[in-house]
Every structure is written in C-alpha cells, then in structure tokens.
C-alpha cells in the first residue's frame, strides 16, 4: 500500500474535513492508489514513445491531458527529478530536494548560458561487419566485465542519493564531544591531551562513539606512520578505550588489533632513526598481550593467530631489524609458554643473522641489532622470571658451552655478563632440556 489511510486523513484535515469515517478513508485510499497506477501506466506510454527509460513530469502531464484532466503545472523540469532517500525507523522516505531560492540573488545572477545546440556526428559502427577500433566506438570488453559494470550503472541510474543511517542516530552532543576530543588529542599541550585521554577512559555515556574512536585510531595510524608523537597518542587512545569500564569494546577488537600490530612491527615508525620508537613498540606489545589475556578465553584462536603473525615476522630474514624487534617483544609479552615454544628454538639461528648484521659497518644497523639482542635477552629473562624455584647455575665453561648450543655464542656472552646470568642460564637450560 503506497497511499495509506493516514495520508487521506491528513489531506482531509488540511482542507477542513475533520471527521472522516474509517470506511471512507479506506475506500478513498484504495481508489486514489488505483487512479495513480492508472495515470502512471498511461504516462509510461509517453515515456516509451519518447524512447526514454525514466519517467518525467511531462509524461505524467501528457497522461493527464489524454484523460482530459487538467495537468499539474509548475513541476516540469528539463531533467529527470532527483529523489533523495531518507531512512527512518519505520520505512524509507523519498523526497525531492526543494531549496528556497532567494529572488534577489537570482535576479542579480547573469543569465544562464544558452544550451548547446543539437548536433550530429557520423562514424562507422561497423565496416563489413567488423567494428573499427576508433574513439567513437566503445572499447571492446569481455562479457564478464560487462556483467560487472551493469549493476553499478543501474544503481547510478536510479537517481537516488542515499544518506547513511548512522548520521541520524548519533546525537548532536556526541558529535560535538567527538570533535572536541579529537581536536584536543592533536593539541601540543600535554595537559589538554591527557585530560582528553582521561575523559575517554572514564566517561560513561560515550559508548556510541567507540566505533568512531576505533575508526579514528585506524585512520590515524594509517595516515601518520612516520609521526611518532601521533602514533603514541593513538596508542594512548586505544589504551584509554580499553581501560574505560563503561565501554564494551569486545566487538571492536578485530578493528583495533591491526592498528596495534602496525605500531608493533612496522618497518619505520618515526621520521628520524634516533627517535625512541622502541618504547612505542613496547607499549603496543604490552597492549596486545593484555588483549590476549583478556579475551583469550572467549576467542581461543586469538592468541594463536597473533603469535603466528609475529612468528612469521620474526623468522623472515628479509624483514628489517625493527620489525624483528617488534616481533620478539610481542612474542615475549605473550607469556612463558610462547617463548619456550616459539622463541627459544629459533634463537640460535636468529643470532647468526644478527651477528652478520653487527659485523656491518653501519652504526644504525648495529644499534638496531643491539636492541634486538636486548629484546632476546628480555625474552630469556621472561623464562627466568617464571622459574623462580630453579637454583642459579654456576658461570662455568661447561654451562657456557651448553648455553652456546641453545642461544649461540654472542648471546651467551651477553648472558654471562649479566647480573642475573645464573638464573637465566638455569631457566634456559631447563627449558631446552624439557624440550628435548
């Protein structure tokens, strides 16, 4: 039913008939709808004979004239009417944009240009059955492409502009709040920024904005890959959202994690190599580890998937050292078992790669390699922290050769020079033995 009883009532009210019986409105609505259909089917005849596929106001008027009804003046336009679509809770409403025109400006405007004259051009559509490849003919396309192209075209032809649904749902206040927060996050003043972050982490009424914040993080990370400060802010926002007890972020994790992983293993996260992007990576690793711990129960494959991603980065020798660093840190944060299973068996092979990098005559590479080495040391320390009950091993040459077997010479030397070297060696050797 296009034309409802309610519409009839409204119109009756408008012309001063207030009490209309229900039966009358029903009959009226039915009849009006039928008459509309009649007129429209008549109008389509005119459309078809004009070799068009869009119905125009002129067609409707022609149909009315054929039926000896006074046409409706004032709606005819040269071009097809463009409908806009507005979605409401109950149904979609289509309307024609009707902008008020200021007569003064209209009068002051210069006259519109004369429309272009109708002209003809001639070309060969086919020469003895073969279509020449000239500009006037369409480029030959595969049938598949044609099929793919068509639906897009028909959508465009509808002349309907779709306004997304959410814009209507988000209240003005929330929009203002969101704008305000994102502005503050960009401010250079650390106080303003921290206030904004704090607001995100404790405000109760901003749940509708979570998806926007997640989107904001994703876009920010994507667009500012080399701007360390902005990335830090983005990570802080992620942290804040997660920390807010009033927000239910679980459904948005899959959107958040890619941004975090980017900040963890990306090749370059700063303009200048001397900047401290390592701490950003550490922070991201920490967040990922927290997420895994928090949602690991409900999503069993979450940790495994992240670990697999990181391991692939770790074991790929073509990846830069910065990525390796991120992968090692990320893996170590994921817990002892991950380190035992994924990191420890690969340390020795990896150290030989790292040794080769250290040999190179580049201070930056050497610096990166040292960070990686420290990260590995850190992962070994995770093992040590976990096994408190083990007795620290003696720093003898026997122990050292055992250690070299597991982690390689360079790292073994580093471990030996550490204060807590004994505990580390004991833990590593215990883990290695358990593995065997």
């Amino acid at each position, binding site marked *: 039913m296009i034309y409802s009883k309610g519409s009839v009532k409204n119109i009756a009210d408008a012309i001063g008939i207030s009490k209309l019986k229900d039966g009358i409105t029903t*009959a009226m609505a039915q*009849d009006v709808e039928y008459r509309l259909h009649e007129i429209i089917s008549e109008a389509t*005849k005119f459309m078809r004979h004009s070799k068009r596929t869009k119905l125009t106001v002129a067609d409707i008027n022609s149909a009315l004239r054929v039926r000896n009804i006074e046409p409706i003046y004032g709606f005819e336009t040269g071009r097809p009417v463009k409908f806009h679509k507005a979605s409401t809770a109950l149904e979609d409403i289509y309307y024609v944009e009707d902008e008020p025109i200021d007569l003064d400006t209209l009068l002051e405007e210069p006259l519109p240009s004369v429309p272009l004259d109708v002209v003809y051009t001639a070309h060969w559509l*086919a020469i003895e059955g073969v279509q020449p490849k000239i500009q006037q003919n369409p480029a030959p396309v595969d049938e598949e492409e044609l099929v793919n192209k068509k639906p897009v075209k028909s959508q465009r032809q509808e002349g309907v502009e779709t306004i997304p649904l959410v814009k209507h749902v988000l209240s003005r206040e929330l929009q203002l709040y969101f704008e305000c927060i994102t502005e503050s996050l960009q401010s250079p003043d650390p106080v303003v920024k921290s206030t904004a972050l704090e607001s995100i982490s404790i405000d109760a009424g901003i749940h509708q904005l979570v998806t926007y914040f997640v989107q904001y993080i994703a876009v920010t990370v994507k667009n500012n890959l080399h701007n360390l400060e902005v990335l830090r802010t983005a990570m802080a926002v992620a942290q804040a959202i997660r920390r807010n007890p009033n927000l239910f972020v679980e459904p948005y994790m899959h959107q958040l994690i890619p941004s975090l992983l980017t900040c963890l293993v990306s090749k370059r996260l700063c303009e200048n190599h001397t900047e401290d992007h390592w701490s950003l990576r550490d922070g991201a690793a920490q967040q990922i580890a927290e997420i895994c711990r928090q949602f690991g129960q409900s999503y069993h494959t979450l940790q495994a998937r992240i670990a697999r991603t990181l391991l692939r980065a770790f074991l790929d020798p073509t990846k830069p050292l910065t990525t390796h660093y991120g992968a090692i840190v990320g893996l170590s944060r994921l817990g002892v078992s991950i380190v035992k299973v994924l990191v420890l068996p690969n340390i020795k092979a990896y150290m030989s790669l790292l040794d080769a990098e250290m040999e190179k005559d580049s201070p930056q590479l050497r610096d990166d390699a040292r960070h990686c080495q420290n990260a590995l040391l850190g992962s070994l320390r995770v093992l040590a922290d976990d096994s408190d009950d083990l007795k620290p091993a003696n720093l003898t040459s026997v122990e050292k050769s055992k250690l070299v077997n597991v982690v390689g010479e360079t790292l073994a030397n580093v471990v030996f020079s550490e204060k807590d070297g004994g505990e580390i060696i004991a833990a590593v050797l215990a883990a290695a033995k358990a593995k065997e």
Partner: protein
Amino acid sequence: MDASDRHNAAQSTSAAGAGAGSGNGSGSSGGRQASQKKVEKVVLQFLKSKGYKDAEKALRENARLDDAETTLGDLANVFPGNEVGSDASVPNWIMFYNEAEEGNPDAYSQSYRELRRWIDSSLDVYKHELYAASYPIFVHSYVDLLMRGLGEKAEEFMALYSRDHVVNHGKDIGVLATLKTAGHAEENSLTRLFRENKYGVRMTRVGFELLLSFLQDHNHTLLMRTVNQHLNIRTVDGTEPISSELEADVGITGHTQNQLDQFNGQDVFLGSAPMDAYVRDEVERTLQSEAGRRGKDAAGAEASALLDAFAKVKQENAAGAVPAREAMPMPPPHGAEVEHQIASLKALRKRIALGPAALPSICMYTLHNTNSAMNCAAVSEDLSLLAGGFSESYIKIWSLKREPLRGFQSGLAAATAAASTEEDIEAGREKTADDHRKLVAHSGPVFGLDISYDSRYLVSCSEDKTARLWSLDTYTNVVCYKGHNYPVWDVAFAPQGFYFATASHDRTARLWSCDHIYALRIFAGHLSDVNCVRFHPNSKYVVTGSSDKSVRLWDVQRGSCVRVFTGHTGSVDTVAISPDGRIMASAGEDQTVNVWDLGSGRCMDTLAGHAGSVYSLAFSQEGTLLLSGSADETVRAWDIKRSSSASDHPIIAQRREERRQQEAQAGAQPAASGADASSAMDVDNPDDGASASGAKASGSSAKANGQAAAGGASDSKKRDAAGVWKSRRVAESDSLLKTWRTKSTPVYSILMTKRNLAVATGAFTVE
C-alpha cells in the same frame, strides 16, 4: 414442447445414462435428447433455489421431471466439445451452479491451487498448454473475487499465485495487482478486455480432454465456468506436442479461434506492385539513349548494363506482381520517379550481397546535446537528410552532405513562384543558410516522422493529435491532417510516396493521401494503442503493431484486417517487412524479435538476445539478414533462415487443394476413392510444380493462377508443413550473428539503403 418431444425425453433417460457411463458423448440422437432432459433438470433446480414456485411447477408438469438430482459431471459428459477444428469450449450451459462453492470465498483459491498442483504433476508434454490455459483462469478468478467485493481475498490470491505468470504476463499482472475494488475491476480497460473477449488458447486434443475431465472429476465448477465463458480453446490435431507456453498462448485478439483461422486464411497478394507503363518506357528510353549517345565509353557501357539489369527487374516484377485491379491507385507519374528508378537500378548494381558470412557496414549518426528530448529520427533514403522529432514540439533537419538548406525568401509570393522559370525560383531562394533547419508548427512532442522516397516531403505526427506534411523544398508546413482524437504515435510514407499511414493512441491506424485532409481509411480492430505502422512494399497492405501484443496486416483498399499475428509478450513497438514482401519482423517491449511469414501467418523464428526494448528493425535488400537497434545501446544482426518461409497457411493449402479436386472432377476424372485430403495431396504431388509453372505461361488457366499467385512458387515445399504448426522457438537465439555496441547511444532508427548499407541513428545520452 409437443407430445412427441416429451415422449422422446421420457424414453431416452436410460440411453443418456448409458452414454454418460461410457464417457463418450458422440452426439447420437439419444444423447442429445438426454442432454436436453438434463438441462431441464438443472433449470428446475435453479428455479427451486430461487423460489420461483409457479415456474417450477409449470416446468415440472410440462417436462414430467422426477426429482432425482443430476450432477454436473453427467451433464458435461453429454456434450461433445472436442472435435478438431471446432470451437471446443463447452456450450454455454445455463449454469454450473454449485451452492457450496458459490458461498465459499476461498473456493477460487482452493480450486486454483488444486489445478496448479495437478498441472505440476501432469505429463511434461502437456504442461505448456495447461500452463497457458491456467493464466486466463487465474485472471478471471481474481477478477471474480474482486467483483464479489472480496478485495482482501483477491489480494491474497494475487500474492499467492501471481508468481506463476509473472514471466510471461508481468505487465498485465502489474496492472491487475493495482485493482482494489469491484468498481476498479469493472472500469479497468484490461479487465474489460478479459471480460468482453474470449482468451485464446491452443491445445492438443488430449490436453484439452485432460483439463476438462480434471475440472469435472473434482467438481471445480467455478473454474469450469471460467473455461466455458472466457476461454476459447482451439484444439489442434497432430502428433507434435505444443512445445512452449507461448505457442499455446494466443491471447485476446477480439476474434474466436475459428475466426482467427479464417482471418489468417484470407488470400493476400504479396508480390511487388506493378510498374507503371509510363515509368517503364521512360526508363528504358532514357537508358537506351544514354547507351546510344555515349557509344563505347565507360558511361555508355554502364548504361547498357543498367538496361540489362532493368530487363531482369522487369521480368521479376511481372512474375510476382499484384494484379492491376488490386493495386493502389497512384497519381500520374512524373520525371522524378524515372530518375528514382534509374538511381535504384544503379544502386542495385552496386549492392553488396549480405548474409551470415557477409555482414553489412553500418554508418552511425549520433546526435549530441539532445538532453533526452529527441523522440524519433529518420534518414532519407538517398542519405541526404537527417530529421529528428523533439519533445519541444519542433522537428530539426540536418543536411548529411553539409550543404546549406536554402528555403525561400519570405517576400516571394506563391503565385509568382508558380509562374516563374527554374532560374527565378533559384533567385528566390535564400542567399545563405545553415546546414540545419528547425521546422516549427506542432504543439506537442513529435513522436514520429518519415521522409518520402524522393526526399521531397516529410511527414510528422505528434501528441497534438495531428499529422503534418512538410515540403523539403521550402521547409514549410504544407498540410495539417486532423482526424485522430488522441496522440499520434507513428507515421509512415508508402514506398511510392503520396499515401501515408498513421498509428494512434485511439487504437486505430489511418490511411491518408497527401492531397486529402481527411483519412481515406480507418483501420480499427486493435484492442490497445497502435504503436507503429509500416507499408508493405507493394503498398497494398499496411502492418501495425500494438500494445495489445499483436501485429496486424491490413488490406489498404478494403480497410479490413487480413492477418493477426500473436505471440509477443509485450507491446509491439516496431515492425519491418522484407523488400520482397514475404516476411515481416516485429519487436518491442518484450526484447525479442519475432519473424513472421506473411503468407501463412506463422511465426518463423523468435530472436532473443536484446537486453532492452527494441526500437527499430531493418531487413537487408535480399531479406536474408535482419538488423535491430535497441535501447540496450546495441545494433544486432540476425540470420533469417529463408527456407522455412516457403510455406502457406494450412487453410489456403486446403482450399487450393479442394479447388484442384473440383477441377479434376469437372474434367470427368474419377477422384481417388477413399483418399482423404492429405493423401490426395500426395497423389497430386509430382505434376504440381509443372502445372503451376505451366499455368503461368498458358493463358487458359489464368483465372486459377490469379488466385493462387501468392503461393504459386512455394507450392512444392509447403506440403511438408501443411496442417502442422511448425514454428521454431529458441530460448537463447542462435540466429544472432553479431552485436555491435555503441557508446551510451540507444539506437532509434535503422535504415537499409538499396545498396545494403545500414544507417543507424541514435541520441547520445548522458546520465
């Protein structure tokens, strides 16, 4: 009712019982009396139910009827309804009155559902025809529900079952679904069409018997009533089952099936128009003098070659020509016609033979900046002019040779122009002019235009209900033809000019001559808008296509319809006839092109492939190739298989056969005893071709030849197909030879020149 009748009635009760029991209602005298008796009983029941006691009593006394109930099944069995060739719908019984069904609003839905289920489970060979028959039953059930004020039930019914018919009848279903009340159903043009006309369905005898017995056995009297009142079932004999639903679906034509067959059995003369003696002599004289004067040089050689070609054309023309008394009267010929004849001879020599292996060259004229306001376009035959009709009521013409189109200066009076010499006229023309002109006079969108064969006149038609004639010498409106009461959709010139035909929203097509301001003929018979009109090459017929999904062939002289072609599933927007006048193609909204054999009225081929309405069609000069232009921005070429065209309508064949037999009998030759019509045809077969050709030469049998001329040449082939509906239908047509796409340009018109060059026109559309 006298005593003897009563006596018979009383006597034959038992005989009727036996007849009904055997299920064989073969019109014996006993059976007929029994049926009468039963009808009386039914009448009695009716009177009783209505409470007409006196009448009931009187009838009872007169007819001495007992009170035993008569079932409708018994009644139905008595009627012979399925003889081949007869209108097989059961006689109009006074009633199929079943109170249980009448009172039950769900009866239609239930009955129809059962019918559907039954059809679904029936044998595949009969499914097509049964589905076709179920469509009118569906429509009438729906309308019945509406008429009885059960709007909601009707809506429910539509929602449940419309799916079955949307594919073939989508547009009608769309209209029907908008009906809401009994009032709408009464006044809607489509329902009126259904109510006032019978819906034709073509069924095999077995299929029809199956349907009838199903309806009887299950007591679906409501549906039975629909079948009886609103269906027109033509049983076809033959071993070949009906192969598609469309073939079985004849639809509403405004004629019963028998009438339709009579219609399509009428003689038509499809040969070419006789050549005017003056033109013939004049052409010959010109060519001869040309050849003689130039002697041995190239031009002279060409002239003599043309002379040979002309001799050939003359011969062909004489062979198949329409008898002079049947031809259209034409004004006395003038010099231009001779020139035209010579030009077309030259074109004939330059013609490139087209076929599936040799596709044509297509020149495309694209119009820009039309802003979707151009409704139609036409190119003159000599490719000198392009004309377009616009929504803004004007016509614009362009010179395709980019020459200035110089009209006359406004000061020049008509009288002085008539008196002056050639040079004076030239002096009276405008000194400068653009290569395009606007023709302004119409007061509504211009929907159709056509340029005469000699490019001297243009005729246009418009929403303002008029057609206008324009002179392309002066570029002015010469005549305004008023007559139609509704917008005029299409206009077409006759091949030799002078006459033109219009097609209008008022459901008529009209014939006009340029020198009369009123219509000479009104072709009335279409049940909806006439969308397009074209002349047959011999000017004796016009073909019209209509929104009622049919195409009709009209005899121009008599103003009567001689062929009805049904088979489209949407309105027909364009038609074309092959230059030899034998076949016709029609297309339109349903995106398929149907190719018809004009002689037999049969569908030769259905060409599917277009993805939009088809706007225009054109045959190659040999008639072996068909080009179609469509809203889907393509031009397509189709292979026309001419072999299947050489057939004739079964009735014509039969009639001719009868005539031959009569002649044979008159000649005191004993006819082959016990031979039926078809075997007699076989007997006559060997000397048939000889007699046809012999008749042409000898003057003795000229009378028979005149009537048989239409089918004369095709005699030997038609017999294979006689009596059998042998139309080929293909889902995705393999006759499609090639598709050429344009750049966002729907193709409005296609013209095939005498040299077999195709010219397509379209308006570039910007979204």
